[in-house]
């Protein structure tokens, strides 16, 4: 499959934190969700993609091009929404857009104004007067106004209300309808990704736990609920994370079918959500 982003054995150390041999790829025309707890390394991966920090090792190819050698060409085709929108707070939105437009050959002012109307952005107001949701909408309008082929969104929905989150997800789904457009969407709000992501990459403590199609993940991972017999020695290898509750034991397994075969009616087996997976795996090895 043709890849919009291809990351191979990426590594980076900063103080105590290490990104270790991270590899994943975002197929062209799809949405990839990058999930993981706070501090897992999601923003570090995005900063490495954008050359905001220097990698210690590994390769990054975007649109098939090396991200260092072809930085300008790649960035001209990227739309970026950072976790905090970094624009001049004291300027009016129309003026902020004027500071951005000259950087993009394909900037379409008509498209920007249409998106401003669609997102109900008050172009005459200063950026600092906007709510967080409106600031994110503005950042998204800017990212979409130069006809980017790849959108990179770093935690765009954190702290936003469900109405705006749904609007954003709808917009992203519409964005990839245009053939060849792709999205890398980093978040710890996993329910957003269950709605729209085609692929999920889970990163924890700087390492990739998995990077697979969403349907495959949701179809295979399961939460098993039952009594203490679940923790018998012969079953321990089946589980990735265990939680002892008031009413018994709950555990995550990567092989729901095998759990069904082993426990049958002796346990309740439910499809795991991405949040379940993130929760249990984060608890594994003492990580909460």
């Amino acid at each position, binding site marked *: 499959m043709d890849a919009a982003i291809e990351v191979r054995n990426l590594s980076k150390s900063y103080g105590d934190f290490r990104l270790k041999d991270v590899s994943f790829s975002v197929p062209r025309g799809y949405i990839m969700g990058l999930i993981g707890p706070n501090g897992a390394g999601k923003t570090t991966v995005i900063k490495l993609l*954008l050359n905001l*920090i*220097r990698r210690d090792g590994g390769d990054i190819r975007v649109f098939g091009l090396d991200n260092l050698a072809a930085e300008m*060409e790649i*960035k001209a085709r990227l739309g970026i929404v950072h976790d905090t929108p*970094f624009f*001049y707070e004291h300027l009016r939105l129309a003026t902020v857009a004027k*500071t951005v437009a*000259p950087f993009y050959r394909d900037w379409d002012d008509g498209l920007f104004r249409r998106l401003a109307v669609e997102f109900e952005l008050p172009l005459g107001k200063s950026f600092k007067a906007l709510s967080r949701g409106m600031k994110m909408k503005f950042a998204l309008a800017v990212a979409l106004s130069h006809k980017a082929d790849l959108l990179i969104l770093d935690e765009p929905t954190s702290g936003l209300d469900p109405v705006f989150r749904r609007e954003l997800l709808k917009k992203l789904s519409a964005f990839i309808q245009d053939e060849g457009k792709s999205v890398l969407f980093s978040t710890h709000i996993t329910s957003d990704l269950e709605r729209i992501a085609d692929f999920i990459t889970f990163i924890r403590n700087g390492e990739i736990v998995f990077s697979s199609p969403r349907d495959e993940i949701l179809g295979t991972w399961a939460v098993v609920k039952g009594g203490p017999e679940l923790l018998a020695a012969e079953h321990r290898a089946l589980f990735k994370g265990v939680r002892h509750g008031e009413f018994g034991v709950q555990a995550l397994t990567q092989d729901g079918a095998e759990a069904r075969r082993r426990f049958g009616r002796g346990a309740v087996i439910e499809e795991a959500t991405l949040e379940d997976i993130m929760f249990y795996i984060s608890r594994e090895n003492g990580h909460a």
Partner: protein
Amino acid sequence: MLKLWAKDWLAARWLLLADLAVLCLYSLQPYFSAGFILAGGAAVILFGLGIVFFLEDRNRTEVLFLSFPIRRADVVGARYLFGALLVLLSGAALFGIVAPVAALVQSGVSGDDPLKLISIDAAAAFLCLSVFLVALYLPFYHRFGFGRGTIRFAAAALGLAAAALAAFLPALSAKNGGAEAAFRAVRTIRLSLGTALFLAAVAAFIIVTGFISFRVSLRFYERREF
């Protein structure tokens, strides 16, 4: 390059204009000496750079703009050219407005005649001082960012000023303070070299200082992480 200037101009235009206006108002203050006015011209340049960098730092726009299709070398180059533009604008205001008006306003009031600002010596001193300060500031800024960079630059500039003061102490005791001694030193150099060679030396100083500073800044900035 122009697009980087355009964003800085859109972000800081009113503060930059106010900065230059303050310099022009110097001319109406009858007790400001020629040396003070000259130093004020250099301070306005640093303040102008500081305004742009402060706004960039406060809004963290550097991270945003470095995500755009722009090379770090272009960012550094644009900042040096912006510094050069401020030197030219400040120089034009200083020698075209401030010095003549100050000479009129201060006629007979100040013992330190601002008319002496309208000379090759004063222009050369202003250019060398301002280029040196900008060339000293920008590597600190590119290495450490606005806050820490500005503090380190201020410490370095004060250290150098103290060293210069100690070196020129015998000349200072002669008469009229530091500015007079500096003007006399510049005049002595010009007379000993001849005006043509003196101007060539000033140009060489500006080019070499600017170039070395640019290379150092570029090296720092290309390694900087955001």
